């Protein structure tokens, strides 16, 4: 086990290196420049001065080496926009994204997995059809459309829930206030992941139920419930666990539209602004952080595999 973890750590470093280099190259290939230089009213000497301040007058290779040298010390430099330290900005935003993503994930699990189980066990019943239908709807609706509908209903019409930010400006920490701000964005974000979870759980469990060992167990007289929970569900969780490994990084880096509409100060919103503004240090910093989250969650997924299915070994 220890050896395995060490191997994975070494691989992680290689991945990080590849990811950061690829992103660096792509970001410099993209047309345009830092938005502070790209304004209609800028003058040539202004752009020159800014280029020098941002280090853009140096050759690509030098800039790459400089970035790498400070990145290994976990220093991602200063944003090309408002010139704040990238570390500071990410440190501010990451917990917000984790909060939103975490809530959406828990919501998805709490609703999605039971829904998938019910769907699978009552296959082709009307319950199954209803659950499947809603899953599909959830999969098919563009996030921003759901968001606007919910805002129109719950904020404008009913005045029940706030539609932006994490808390009411000017108030000190109040749990109910925080939760009320979390509800709408979490629901919108969950609609992108809940249906997947429910469907995958359903299809995986259906497969398991069709397996010989399940039929054997039932024939031997074991109660259906027990067969389900001890064996079938456990095995069916494997492909579902796979899905988690994909959902988590998506939640971290990709809740862009949700964060933008609800003005949730997270990393997704930051990533869009950084892309539009060609803010290279910020883009690079975000990429590395997301990469680390992906690597860690993939590792956890693989370890979970081994725990769930004793037949799987890493040989």
């Amino acid at each position, binding site marked *: 086990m220890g050896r395995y973890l060490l*191997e994975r750590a070494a*691989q992680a470093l*290689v*991945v990080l290196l*590849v*990811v950061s280099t*690829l*992103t660096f190259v*792509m*970001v410099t*290939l*993209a*047309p345009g420049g830092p938005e502070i230089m790209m304004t209609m009213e800028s003058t040539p000497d202004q752009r020159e001065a800014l280029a020098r301040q941002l280090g853009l007058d140096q050759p690509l290779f030098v800039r790459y080496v400089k970035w790498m040298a400070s990145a290994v010390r976990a220093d991602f430099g200063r944003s090309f926009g408002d010139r704040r330290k990238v570390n500071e900005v990410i440190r501010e935003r990451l917990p917000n994204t984790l909060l939103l993503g975490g809530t959406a994930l828990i919501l998805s699990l709490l609703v999605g997995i039971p829904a998938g189980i019910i769907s699978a066990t009552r296959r082709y019943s009307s319950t199954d*059809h209803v659950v*499947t239908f809603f899953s*599909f*709807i959830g*999969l*098919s*609706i*563009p*996030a*921003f*459309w759901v968001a*606007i509908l919910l805002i129109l209903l719950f904020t404008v019409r009913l005045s029940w829930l706030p539609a932006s930010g994490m808390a009411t400006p000017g108030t000190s920490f109040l749990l109910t206030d925080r939760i009320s701000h979390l509800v709408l964005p979490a629901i919108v974000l969950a609609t992108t992941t809940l249906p*997947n979870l429910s*469907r*995958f759980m359903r*299809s995986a469990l259906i*497969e398991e139920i*069709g*397996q010989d060992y399940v039929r054997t167990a039932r024939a031997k007289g074991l109660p259906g419930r027990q067969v389900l929970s001890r064996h079938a569900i456990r095995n069916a969780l*494997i*492909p579902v666990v*796979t*899905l988690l*490994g*994909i959902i988590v*990084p998506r939640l971290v*880096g*990709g809740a*862009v*539209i949700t964060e933008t509409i609800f003005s949730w100060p997270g990393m997704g919103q930051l*990533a*869009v602004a950084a*892309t539009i503004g060609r803010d290279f240090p910020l*883009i690079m910093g*975000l*990429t590395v952080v*997301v*990469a680390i989250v*992906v*690597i860690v969650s*993939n590792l956890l997924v693989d370890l979970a*595999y081994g725990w769930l*299915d004793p*037949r*799987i070994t*890493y*040989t």
Partner: protein
Amino acid sequence: MTGGGAQSIDIPSATRAAIVPPPPRTLWTIAARRLRRNAPALLAIGFLVIVHLFAVLGPWLLPWDPFAADPLTRLTGSSAAHPLGTDEIGRDVAARLILGSRVSLGVGLVAMIISVSVGVAVGALAGYFGRRTEAVLMRFTEAMLALPTLFVILAALAVFGGGPTTSTIVIGLTAWMPVARVVRGEYLRWRVTEFVDAARVIGSSDLRIMLRHILPQVSPSIIVAATLNVAFAILTESAISYLGLGIRPPLPTWGNMLQNAQIYIWSAPSLAVYPGAMILLTVLAYNFVGDGLRDALDPRLKI
């Protein structure tokens, strides 16, 4: 009814049934039969056929010009001249919807084919061979997952120019990773089963085992993944348009029609309803079909 040679003797039907071989039962005839009993899937297939037909033939069959703008007749509701009304500069919504279906469907299908092909290849190789191969391939998958999609798209558009082709390839190349992970997980499971051991014992090559033995077991998951990917591709295209990248007007896609309609939800919500409904219904239909196919193709189910 009988597949045999010419009959010149008159045999009663009961006897005939006893001596005549039943029709051949391949995986596909079984699947077709099962599918026929799945009402939602059949509805969905019918819907998709209609939508695709419109997409292919529409621009010739129907008289409206999707690019003719007239600011004085903007945002009008349904009328004789414009069955679905006009958009923000007076272009016919129905015409744009049909032309847009071409683009959106094209992007969705081709991107899905790309992503599934790459994903299955990577996942199968990784899951089956394990060790070094798996390590390299899965780390590569991780690396791709960690790449911010926005930048991949921006950079690709920078180097190759914008438009439908680039967008499709880029969406396809950013959607294969989940497929690879799932397929790899499945191959990992199936590699250690008895029947694979048996196949090895009788001397089947690795390729044969991967394709002929394991792949059918995995195919339900792949089909589910494939239909989800069409959904993902169409939704990604709309998300890209929302952010102002991808395929630009005046060439319509459901995604960029939805984006343009955002501002008008207060004054003309139908502008967003139509493309949104097309995305919803099409994706829904693909999912029902995929689900139906999954059940139909499951080799372990009895009729």
